[in-house]
């Protein structure tokens, strides 16, 4: 067999082996990202904390031009939002979420994931937007059943002020 045919055949065979090895490694071995009986619970929302405001005094109002006379004056920075999550009575998240933005004027945001074995759980979630408020602005308690491989998301509908389980 002449040189170039030899190179084409032998080189081609080696190249094919490399391509097949590449193809195999392109999908194998499989990776078990989550246990076979595992499920995922995710908590994520965007909520704005309260602002610290006070009423302007009559003297302050009088010093302003008529079109600027707003009754209240508020700090730019928002309050942190308190979020708590309990699963079967065990507190898995209790955090004060700082406001976003350089001046702290943006909403507070959270994204947390909890890997759980499939099963039934009692889930309680609550948030407080004003630290001065002794209660919570939104709460939800629900019994959930997670199937293997299920992805359950808890969001917050800021318009209605309620938690949403997706």
């Amino acid at each position, binding site marked *: 067999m002449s040189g170039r045919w030899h190179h084409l055949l032998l*080189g081609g065979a*080696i190249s094919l082996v*490399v391509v*097949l090895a590449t193809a195999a490694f*392109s999908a194998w071995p499989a990776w078990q990202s989550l246990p076979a009986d595992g499920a995922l619970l995710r908590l994520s929302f965007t909520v704005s904390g309260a602002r610290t405001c006070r009423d302007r005094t009559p003297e302050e109002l009088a010093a302003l031009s008529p079109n600027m006379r707003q009754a209240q004056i508020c700090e730019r920075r928002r309050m942190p939002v308190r979020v708590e999550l309990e699963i079967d009575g065990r507190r898995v998240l209790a955090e004060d979420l700082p406001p976003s933005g350089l001046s702290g004027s943006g909403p507070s945001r959270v*994204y947390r994931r909890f890997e759980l074995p499939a099963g039934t759980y009692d889930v309680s979630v609550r948030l407080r937007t004003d630290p001065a408020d002794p209660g919570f602005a939104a709460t939800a308690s629900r019994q959930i059943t997670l199937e293997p491989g299920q992805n359950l998301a808890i*969001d917050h509908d800021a318009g209605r002020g309620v938690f949403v389980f997706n």
Partner: protein
Amino acid sequence: MASPRAVLRRGFDRAERALDLAFGPDWNPLAQLGPLGWFLYWIVVVTGIYLFIFFDTGVTAAYGSVKWLSEDHWWHAGVARSLHRYASDLMVLLMFTHLAREWAMDRYRGARWFSWVTGVPVIWFVYLSGITGYWLIWDQLAQYVALTTTELLDTLGLFGEPIARNFLSPEQLSDRFFTLMVFMHIAIPLLLLLLMWIHIQRIAEPATRPPRGLAVITLAALVAGSLILPAPLQGQADLATIPQRLGLDWFYLGLYPVIELVPAGVIWAGLAAFTLGLVGLPWMPPKPDAPAAEVFLDHCNGCERCVADCPYSAITLIPRSDGAPFRFEVEVNPERCVACGICMGACPSSSPFRRAGGLITGIDLPGHPLAQLRAEVIRAGSELAGGPGSGRVMTLACGDGAGAVPAAGQVHVPCAAMVPPSILDFVISRGLADGICIAGCAERDCQNRFGVRLTRARVARERDPYLRERVPRQRVLSVWAGPTEAGRLSREVAAFSGRLAGLGAYDKIRPLDEADRAEALRATSEPGTAQ
């Protein structure tokens, strides 16, 4: 004990020798990693354009279109998809092999830092191109990649809204997401092309096309591989579930299991350290300085031969500045010069026969000037046992081939092409040896890119400066061998010596005068005195 670099280099050399047998030196894939990378890039581009014809952007349409082309039209679009994927995977494999090989061959420091450093963002853009491609299919692997990537990106705190929220539930994912991903999957490879172009800017005649035979072999193997093992498509993504067991593409997604297991801060720190470490490698430590080539205008007529032969585009032609009756002179950019000496070998003024005044050529290498080379061949000739006609072989060896280890009768040069053909003439016609062995790098890949090709052409009298006709071709042997082939070099030199003995002495010897010889021997025993 050998350094890790030397061990790796010898490992590459052995593997390449085996591939030389299978592919031939000119088609050796390990010596064509850069051109092959370009070839694979174009395969990915062409197949990507073809796949785009059939691809629908949409939450359900994306997966449906990929499933349709993979199953119903497997024989053209499905094969194109497999080619797209496997060529991309091979690019990763080639890229890291290329990186390791250039490091092993010490071709990343000194003047070569630019190609190394500009190659680092190429790695990132290859990965970004691949990862955005995986999102588009919107199967379970895409869902896993999208979620893991966005969760990792969110830890940087750069995005106002956590971008992982886009994948919170099926309702939150819109068709526009796929339009955005298509845009990214086109824009990023285009930027990659720009980076690849920058990557090769500091080398002359960059090889961006593999030899045709190797291209045919590679494409045929990819097509055959795509037919035998079509690229798999996993189940459709469903944000109401979470992918549990996945067939990962370990070339692109090998880091993803680590992302799951290790805190995000460690991942980012590791990636930053990897990137900065690679960028800084050319200076850890820097390459010992080899002075750049130097131009001597009194001996330069602006003939351009050095400009044409320089493998690194380090020499340019500029208007004459000294009033001599020539249009041009040459200028060396020291930032680009690797001091290989190929320019000196190309200069017609590089003649060892000229002895009026100091031996100065048009373009010389300060660290290893022509005068020193002349003195070294005289010294090497004096070390050879026997007299004229006894088969004495002088070896002119480059430091990167099989003759790298010093021995009697050898002269070491940075590159075989640094030796002007007139030196070969000088050795033979002065009776310093009966024959000359040029021991250069392995044929498949010269350390200085063009050394093998230029030396061959000059000795074959196909390229200026030519080897003079009076030098019998049978008295010059070229051995192109890598660092692990010292044994072959010895055997070939021994056989050559036997053939030379059969030829007898060269019949036109004009012996060197003793004063010249004594001066050369004195010069080589006192470094730096050869003039």
